[in-house]
């Protein structure tokens, strides 16, 4: 029996290690690249022979990257806040209220979740140029929050539906005004869901590339994914590989932090929004 258990455990260990390697290897590879100096960059080693911060110093010395980082953070945060606020309102209505038109709202957000962004790029490009928000933060925030709204509405309404109705009733009978019931009972219970949704929306906005390269033309609103695609070497003969790798690692850090600390929540949010609907 013990022997069987041991081979069983061994088999699972192997499987788990394979899965972890599969998931982490490309990340490890680009991180290793970012710590190599130009002379060892091409050695193909998985672990840098001489660790160097040179690439990081290099990118943080240019406004091209720092400006893009500020843009990325600012745009993603603002879009997240707006999408979560609007999404919370709509999701509360979807989960808790009876009103005609609910299905229309759900259908519409579903359509948008499936919408090909490229189809919007050409009209948005033209509209934004006409009304003067092309190459500005606003010009990116608007499409980001729109495309993350369906995600926010689904995830949040799934969370809201899990808060038992009876609690609100109980609070009312216990002597709470509607405002008190909301503040003291609903908000504390909804907060984790709202927070999880905010993480998912932030990841979504942080990840975008198509809008970022289409609706910007200068450093003023270009986000990091777009900026690194335009990185050039510090001299004409040098490949920007090290800089790109370093920048890539920098924008991966927040993702790693989210995943490490909120793994459970992210899984719950992703699956509840998409499957339980």
């Amino acid at each position, binding site marked *: 029996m013990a022997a069987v258990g041991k081979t069983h455990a061994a088999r699972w260990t192997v499987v788990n290690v394979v899965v972890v390697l599969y998931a982490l290897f490309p990340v490890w590879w680009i991180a290793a690249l970012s710590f190599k100096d130009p002379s060892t960059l091409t050695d193909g080693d998985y672990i840098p022979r001489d660790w160097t911060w040179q690439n990081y110093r290099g990118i943080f010395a240019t406004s091209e990257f720092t400006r893009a980082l500020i843009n990325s953070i600012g745009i993603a945060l603002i879009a997240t806040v707006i999408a979560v606020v609007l999404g919370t309102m709509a999701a509360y209505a979807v989960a808790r209220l009876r009103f005609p038109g609910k299905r229309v709202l759900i259908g519409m957000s579903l359509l948008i979740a499936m919408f090909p962004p490229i189809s919007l790029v050409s009209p948005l490009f033209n509209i934004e140029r006409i009304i003067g928000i092309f190459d500005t933060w606003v010009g990116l925030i608007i499409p980001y929050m729109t495309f993350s709204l369906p995600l926010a509405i689904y995830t949040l309404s799934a969370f809201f539906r899990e808060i*038992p109705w*009876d*609690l609100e*009733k*109980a*609070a*009312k*009978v*216990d*002597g*709470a*005004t509607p405002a*008190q019931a909301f503040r*003291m*009972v609903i908000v*504390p*219970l909804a907060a984790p869901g709202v927070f999880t949704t905010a993480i998912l929306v932030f990841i979504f906005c942080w990840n975008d590339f198509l809008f970022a390269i289409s609706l910007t033309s200068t450093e003023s609103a270009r986000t990091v994914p777009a900026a690194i695609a335009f990185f050039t070497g510090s001299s004409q003969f040098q490949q920007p590989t090290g800089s790109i790798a370093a920048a890539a690692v920098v924008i991966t850090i927040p993702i790693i932090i989210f995943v490490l600390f909120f793994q459970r929540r992210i899984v719950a949010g992703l699956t509840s929004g998409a499957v339980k609907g």
Partner: protein
Amino acid sequence: MAEIILEGVTKRFPDGALAVKDVDLEIADGEFVILVGPSGCGKSTTLNMIAGLEDITEGTLRIGDRVVNDLAPKERDVAMVFQSYALYPHMNVGENMGFPLRLAKVDKATIDAKVAEAARILDLTEHLDRKPANLSGGQRQRVAMGRAIVRDPKAFLMDEPLSNLDAKLRVQMRTQISRLQRRLGTTTVYVTHDQTEAMTLGDRVVVMRQGLVQQIGTPAELYDSPRNIFVAGFIGSPAMNFLNATLEAGALRSPVGDLPLDDRTRRELERQNAPRQVILGLRPEAFEDAALAHDRDRTGPVFTTTVEVLESLGSDVYVYFTAEGGPATSAELEELATDSGMRDTGADASHIVARLDAATRAREGEPVRLQVDMAKAHVFDPGTGANLTHPLRAA
């Protein structure tokens, strides 16, 4: 503490469905009243209207000396225990119980004292710091009770508070609720679909069906003199047996033989223009083993049947047999059958159960002679469902 008075209370939902119709009910101060009925009978809606969680479409509701129709739940000063317990998951036991007091801006010391007292009564003292998620079902139920009693409200409203507990715990908690209510003397309205709970807990029981009150009375009244076939079938376990019978020449021709009627019954049936075809209702204990009945000097019509199944409970023996003439049918009986799940188990209403003394010699597969106690027989009008013998027994 206060009395609760419902006058012509009606609830119509936005889609036009009538959930509760014209309920008149006076609940005295300190009384324990049960609302019972199958699901969808309007009992929970009635309770929610008393709590203020549901608007009253028509009629007036008084708690104490105030009409509270338009008051928010918060202003009615009632406490409610929910089927799901509705404990606030982010608060620990103490905070849950103290929440109503905190909302009422009671000072901290008083809250702590009252919570401690309630916890002591409910045996929750050592769990005060735990979150509801870490409690067992029975403990959660007690916390829900505690949240109700700390406030010392005008009334307790309980919506199936025990139906999420397992059978054994349910019986224990039933006794505890009953003891608690006597001790506190707080007016209590209790909703359940379980007639056993209704019979054991309530001072008075209100039987509802399809939004209408069927009968209000003490458990004994409902059991001994049900006003109609629905109440008769709903109250009592095992349920009353219903048989098709024909009124002929002052006797009932029934599958269990010709049963003579006494003069009073005959006159009453005549007075009420009883139809020829009636439904005869006999509770299991209306039968007795004729051999034993003779010893005890009882008289009554006797018939012979074959025992199909025999269940011995030690104190009593249940004997199942089949009556000729098929099962009695009426709309009310249909609903009862659906509600009790008889349809699902494939059980047949033509099976009759008799409760016999443990001393009986009846054996499975063998014939047995049974005597019918006509004093316990009920006669129903199949059309209206009314109990034609009700006036005799209600007296």
